[in-house]
């Protein structure tokens, strides 16, 4: 029940997933294995004058029924609730009395344009900050919705997690960081269990435009489902997306003692920050190589033990080139297969690390590698087996490395493993 460093082994006993493909773990996994794309034309708000008009979006039931779109903060909370509830059901844990803390990976949230417009209308048509500040007086609802601690506090209250919930962001590595924080809390003996979550719901005009302005997004708007092309020669940016994944983590001992079904282990976590540039990796790849090696070493494994890599694989020219460099540095001339879930679900940003860790566990469970779709023109600079276009049945797969590399140089890698 202990790992190679004498720490408690950390088991996964529940998984919940929401993505543009579906609400629910198994429906998501079936779609992913089938190579289906969840990317579509944005319908949530007018798209005229946008450079990029496609995304992966998760609509709430009331939005689908015609209600006005909710803010990112509300969407994050709702998807998180659904993912947690699904994970707790699988773990056979009671709703409302979770025996450990909540580690919540989420984006920064703030008032958005609909709120600003509403306040300006309340200020007789003035959008000046002093005027909208006066108009906002007494709007406890805005305050509690957009405080950074708000989402976590409400989720903690609803699911009865212990202690202070911790909301965190490490850009595109956020979901992986949340899992790492939960693993550390269990290894440290702070709790027998922890709830780890990554969620993002940022498809709103300003966020789309801001990522566009950074030249990070593809503008291949004509065929949305073919736009996300990780590792392909024609890749030219990522597709923004939304979703959430929750993992119930507990010490293997705790899981076994209560007779829970163990879905797998989070056996290693590695991180390394980069000091090179705000949006680019150091060309020497040292930080991402370091994060990958640290995760494998933390799991007490050698690179050759890793049977498959769940890529960060955003589909930007830069990321995929750097990830290839990292793969070669860590695994040498015979790297394991690697594929990108983002080819189908897009880049779910703060949720990506958690969603992809969840899919990595299902990869081991079913011994099926999900494909990298839209792979039609291999890039000669990317000499990797990217599991092109079709899922692949494998056998004997025990250890998967899941990569997450963020803007701001925050890199986190996880090793997930079969149940012992």
């Amino acid at each position: 029940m202990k790992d190679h460093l004498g720490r408690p082994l950390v088991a996964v006993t529940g998984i919940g997933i929401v993505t543009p493909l579906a609400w629910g773990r198994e429906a998501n996994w079936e779609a992913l294995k089938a190579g289906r794309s969840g990317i579509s034309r944005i319908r949530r708000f007018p798209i005229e004058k946008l450079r990029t008009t496609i995304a992966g979006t998760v609509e709430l039931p009331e939005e689908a029924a015609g209600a006005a779109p909710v803010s990112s903060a509300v969407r994050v909370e709702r998807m998180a609730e659904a993912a947690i509830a699904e994970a707790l059901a699988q773990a056979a844990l009671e709703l409302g009395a979770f025996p450990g803390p909540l580690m919540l990976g989420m984006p920064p949230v703030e008032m958005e344009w609909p709120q600003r417009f509403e306040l300006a209308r309340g200020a007789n048509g003035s959008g000046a900050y002093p005027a909208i500040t006066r108009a906002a007086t007494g709007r406890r609802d805005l305050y509690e919705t957009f405080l950074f601690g708000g989402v976590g506090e409400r989720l903690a209250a609803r699911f009865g997690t212990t202690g202070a919930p911790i909301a965190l962001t490490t850009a595109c590595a956020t979901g992986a960081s949340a899992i790492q924080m939960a693993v550390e809390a269990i290894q440290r003996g702070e709790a027998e269990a922890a709830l780890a979550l990554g969620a993002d719901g940022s498809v709103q005009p300003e966020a789309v435009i801001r990522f566009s302005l950074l030249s990070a997004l593809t503008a291949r708007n004509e065929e949305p489902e073919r736009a996300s092309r990780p590792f392909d020669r024609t890749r030219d940016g990522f597709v923004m997306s939304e979703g959430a994944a929750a993992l119930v983590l507990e010490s293997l001992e705790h899981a076994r003692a209560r007779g829970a079904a163990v879905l797998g282990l989070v056996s290693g976590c590695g991180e390394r920050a980069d000091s090179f540039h705000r949006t680019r990796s150091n060309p020497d790849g040292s930080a991402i190589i370091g994060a990958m090696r640290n995760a494998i070493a933390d799991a007490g494994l050698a690179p050759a033990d890793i049977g498959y890599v769940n890529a960060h694989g955003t589909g930007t020219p830069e990321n995929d080139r750097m990830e290839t460099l990292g793969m070669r540095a860590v695994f040498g001339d015979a790297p394991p297969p690697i594929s990108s879930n983002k080819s189908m679900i897009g880049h779910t940003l703060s949720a990506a690390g958690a969603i992809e860790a969840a899919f990595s566990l299902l990869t081991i469970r079913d011994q099926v590698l999900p494909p990298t779709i839209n792979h039609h023109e291999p890039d000669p600079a990317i000499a990797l087996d990217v599991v092109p276009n079709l899922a692949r049945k494998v056998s004997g797969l025990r250890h998967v490395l899941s990569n997450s590399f963020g803007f701001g140089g925050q890199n986190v890698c996880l090793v997930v493993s079969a149940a012992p």
Partner: protein
Amino acid sequence: MTCQDVVVTGIGLVSSFGEGAEAHWEILSRPGAKPVLDEAAFAPYPVHPLPAMSFDAQIPKKGDQRQMEPWQRLGTYAAGLALDDAGARGLVADMHLIVAAGGGERDIAVDEAVATALCSTPPAEAGPILNERLATDLRPTLFLAQLSNLLAGNISIVHGVTGSSRTFMGEEAAAADAVRIAAARLAEGRGQIALVGGAYASQRWDLMVLYGAGGALWRGPFAPVSARGGAGGFVGGALGAFLVLETAEHAAARGARALARLAGVATDAAHRRAGGGSAAVARALHARLGGPTGAGLGVLSGMTGIAEARAEEEAFLAGLGAAAVRRTGSLLGHGVEASFPANVALAALALSRGGFYPPMDPADAGEGPVERILVTGFGQWRGEALALLERAA
């Protein structure tokens, strides 16, 4: 798993009083310090403004400064002060970093112009215009200045801190958990040295609208935290506060001076739903830290001035006997994510100088000298946190 002593070996502090440990000790250790205030610029909300600063000393490249707005500059600057104070510049490659962050600055002029122009236009019509305006008016670099995790990103880039990088969000509680987890990781042997802290740029309308909406800001002429009537409120204080934490063994091996021992940090969140008051939660946290009370104990309270949390904290403080209590918010203001690390820094500073601070607020009572200092952090909306510091061996 090992459990090692953790010490504070460096503090980086910027407030309305100025910058650096020495400057703060000079001002705060003498009676009669008066808060630095601007009561006009953000009326009806007073603020403690940023001091005049030259960022070049800690952020030498102008290109780096241009990629940031005041919040990130303040934090990056304070982080550099902490590294210098600890003599830890050479240790940054394997140093772990946890930042407690709020949101970065919005482009106020763009927000105001667009909101005024489009607020009354029907959404279907306003949408395309909004898209066009934002695509034209928003500066790409400002997105990075706005991202919460980019304070940590800038600390990595400017100072080279690359062991790891995490950013916690969640106002006061995020900062207390940042200190708690940074210390816990060192204690269990995950790394030898860490940098942790936060920053708050108080002169920001985009924060006034948020905190003002919740009634969290004090309105009208300045009053000390204990004397704010009605529902009370906080007065935002410019604050950058970073700590270098280190295992005692590592500090001793490199001959670094330990300012204080961080004996423990404990945090929780009272869930109002369950009817659990903050005072009861804080008493439980206090017990976890060994329950120090009475003479020889100093308290640096992060009291915000919001009446509800203040009443809970006063009930807790009343159980600490003859402890010398100082409400630092009456001089420094409230710095949200920066307040808890700032008060830990002031505690380490006092313990290293063998002194304590004279009263800062009319309600402050008790006298030094102190052997141990308890830092409190009752959040404006939720969260309770305590840290206990002792004289270094």
